[in-house]
């Protein structure tokens, strides 16, 4: 099944009209592609009149080049637009798939930043912490050599390595 059709193509009016299936290309996707083309073309969106009731299932995209284009260039223009629709659809899918992860990362980043700068953490002068800044209960300031050096044998007085 063809999903992108060139409905009309006229080098005289410098316009190509495509039809897109809305089931495959949601309106957000077509908006995204139209936005990309807005500097090169005049874009007009429409819906294809439906025989039955309800919203038409196909969109019409009228692209008129801002520069003069021949038929081959207009056909390429239409192809580029449909490619852009695919790229936008994929981008949308990836964004949706990663939305939770992105939200989680942003939440953690904001929480971390806010937690680090809470002023009351620094103003708590009544804290029962009696430690001096030189105290080192975890032994962080002890040099590695002191912490892990072999103890010298007690009797022979040999040198510790």
């Amino acid at each position, binding site marked *: 099944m063809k999903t992108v059709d060139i409905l009309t193509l006229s080098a005289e009016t410098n316009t190509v009209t495509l039809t897109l299936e809305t089931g495959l290309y949601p309106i957000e996707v077509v908006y995204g592609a139209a936005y990309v083309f*807005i500097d090169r073309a*005049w*874009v*007009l*969106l*429409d*819906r294809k009149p439906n025989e039955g009731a309800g919203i038409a299932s196909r969109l019409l995209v009228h692209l*008129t080049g801002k520069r003069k284009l021949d038929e081959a260039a207009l056909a390429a223009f239409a192809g580029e637009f449909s490619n852009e629709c695919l790229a936008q659809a994929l981008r949308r899918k990836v964004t949706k798939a990663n939305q939770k992860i992105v939200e989680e990362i942003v939440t953690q980043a904001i929480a971390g930043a806010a937690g680090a700068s809470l002023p009351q953490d620094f103003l708590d002068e009544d804290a029962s912490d009696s430690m001096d800044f030189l105290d080192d209960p975890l032994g962080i300031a002890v040099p590695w050599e002191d912490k892990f050096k072999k103890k010298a044998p007690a009797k022979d007085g040999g040198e510790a390595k």
Partner: protein
Amino acid sequence: MSAIAVTLRFHRTLYMLQAVREAARIYGEFAKFQISTDGDYYVANVSDPDPEVDGDIAREFANQALVGSIARRRHKAA
């Protein structure tokens, strides 16, 4: 296209009225715009284009209406 009056039809499910009106306000300096509703469409009549303007006012207006509609929809969805 700008030399004579032009009628543009914007489908109501694809364009937002505020965006069409905003575009008319932006380009109102260069032409006369009349916005009305006709069934499923917003209809914009563009007339009296400024002869000194080198460009297609009606089509630029349509592009602006589309960009405005996209921006407003995205803002609404966010």
